[in-house]
């Protein structure tokens, strides 16, 4: 028994439990983040059950990661006193992982791949030199107002919101 770590010497079972809880928590948070990313990955086949699972994990992961992070901070503080440099390094790495997962739970990584267009801008027909005559456009006309969305732009953004003739719309491609 190491006399330099009186806390660990006194309550070894508690320390082991705290480490177990810490690893378990990290594993659960990691699973909550990684599973939906994997399930709704492009070029994969999806089932309705997979969609449901991905939806629920994504829905609860922002809250779960914060609760998990708080718990892990508490466990880390508890374990810090009894740990030596090696164990402290592991603690720091687990905390960094938890912080990263908590951040990622708040990101939409699909919008990293396909830049959204939150404020779509438009030009008059005469100024639209960026479209070739032979380029295909998606076109709509509502209440005498007409708008065109060049497909080459749509195939990148995929989702463009607009209001045409007073009707709020989403153009999708």
């Amino acid at each position, binding site marked *: 028994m190491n006399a330099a770590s009186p806390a660990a010497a006194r309550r070894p079972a508690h320390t082991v439990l705290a480490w177990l809880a810490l690893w378990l928590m990290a594993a659960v948070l990691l699973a909550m983040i990684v599973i*939906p990313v994997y399930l*709704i*990955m*492009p*070029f994969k*086949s*999806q089932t309705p059950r997979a*969609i*449901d699972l*991905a*939806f*629920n994990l*994504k829905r609860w992961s922002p809250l779960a990661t914060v609760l998990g992070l708080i718990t892990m901070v508490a466990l880390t503080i508890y374990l810090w006193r009894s740990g030596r440099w090696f164990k402290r390094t592991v603690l720091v790495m687990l905390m960094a992982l938890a912080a990263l997962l908590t951040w990622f739970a708040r990101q*939409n990584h*699909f919008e990293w791949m*396909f*830049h*959204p*267009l939150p404020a*779509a*801008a*438009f*030009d*008059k*027909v005469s100024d*639209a030199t*960026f*479209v*070739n*005559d*032979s*380029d*295909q*456009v*998606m*076109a*709509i*006309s509502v209440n005498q107002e*007409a*708008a*065109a*969305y*060049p*497909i*080459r*732009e*749509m*195939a*990148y*953004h*995929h*989702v*463009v*919101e607009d209001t045409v003739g007073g*009707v*709020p*719309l*989403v*153009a*999708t491609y």
Partner: protein
Amino acid sequence: MWERNVDGRTLNFHLSGINNQNFIMRDEETGSWWQQVSGQCIAGPLKGKQLQLVAHDELPFALWKHEQPEGRVLKPDERVAAQYEPVDWEDRYAKLRVITPVDPDDPLKPRDLVIGIAMNGTAKAYPMARLEKLAPVADTLGGTAIVILLDTSKKSVRAFESTVDGRALTFSVKQDTLQIADAETGSNWDFTGRATAGPLAGRQLRRVMVLKDYWFDWKIYHPDTAVY
């Protein structure tokens, strides 16, 4: 193209995932997930709701300019314009992989382009390759007589109900033009479905919504579809 109003509330959509190679959108207001191609809510508080489809079409810019000289055009986003699809994007997309099961006996290939029409509870796919050869195509779908027209670039497709005042019309198109005429009254029509000259001048054919889609994708959402 979907309306963003659902039960009196305007929703804001973001991309949030992929389901069998079709995008999932998430609305900011409720966090629900929506299937882009079908407009159906597939997960979340609004699950089961359906977005309202808005009539739209795909056509060459030159033709659209001619029809809508007062229209407005979506500007490129300068930050990402360099990453927009190149002019030959259609050919490259046609070579992308398909991950849903492929029926070996199916005469159509997964990435064949079809014009999908769903009306009166009936769905039918019209392969683009056949339309390019045969247009204008007259057909009856769920008891409604329709006509399918192609523009001169053979890329833009519009469909209309072909009955006016209870009278079924038979349309013909002069080769390599958009001069459309009906055999019954001899009236001339344009590509917007409006009669421009003749006894029916000023009349407007009812538009039928079409979806240009890959065959594999159309079949996922219309498993009972017929094929022209």
